[in-house]
């Protein structure tokens, strides 16, 4: 279990190699990479500022990872979330899950993203042609997280 919150970018190959290191029983890795889009809610986005609540971020992500490991037969989890100033096309978040088989790895990776989106204390503020604005939470993210409370594996 590994959680990192950082301003720096990350390299996908390096991170996945570290996750897999010396684990020849692993058969499947599922990775989600979130990117800064150049458009959101109908406006051009030139820049994103990501704020968080450090003490709670760590605790919330650890809780989400623990829940994923309790629910699915997976071996390794990595979450990296960037904070600070980000530009369109930059990587924001990496969630990688490794295990023997692909089904649990897919499920756990999507679960972690859905919970991160609704429970981890990050907030985005974006620069648009009309000025800076805080990004509104999406009801579709609540719905995505809600699925997991009904759909027990």
């Amino acid at each position, binding site marked *: 279990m590994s959680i990192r919150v950082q301003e720096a970018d990350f390299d996908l190959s390096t991170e996945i190699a570290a996750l897999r290191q010396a684990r020849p029983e692993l058969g499947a890795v599922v990775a989600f990479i979130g990117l800064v889009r150049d458009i959101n809610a109908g406006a051009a986005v030139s820049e994103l500022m990501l*704020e968080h*609540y450090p003490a*709670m971020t760590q605790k919330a992500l650890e809780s989400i990872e623990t829940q994923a490991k309790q629910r699915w037969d997976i071996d390794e989890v990595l979450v990296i979330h960037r904070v600070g100033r980000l530009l369109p096309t930059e990587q924001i*978040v990496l969630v990688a899950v490794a295990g023997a088989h692909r089904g649990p790895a897919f499920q756990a990776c999507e679960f972690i993203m859905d919970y*991160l989106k609704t429970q981890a204390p990050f*907030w985005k503020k974006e620069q648009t042609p009309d000025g800076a604005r805080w990004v509104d939470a999406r009801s579709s993210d609540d719905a995505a997280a809600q699925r997991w409370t009904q759909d027990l594996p």
Partner: protein
Amino acid sequence: MALTVLYFARLRERLGLAQEGIALQPNLTSVGDLLNYLRARGPQWQAALGDEKVVRVAVNQDLAQNDTHLKDGDEVALFPPVTGG
């Protein structure tokens, strides 16, 4: 007998405040009490904290509800729904 209250993101900007100490009182013992106490500070506070849907509360870094009890030394964070990932 005091709480540390933290404000994040849009709430911090609207209130112009990132952190303050608030004394516990006989009628201020839960998250719901604290929200009512803050809303009573004036129209700006009422507007920022008035809608239950736009304010989330964490007590000691765990998401909390209106009936969550508050005790001396608690860190209470108020923030809008999260938008990370």
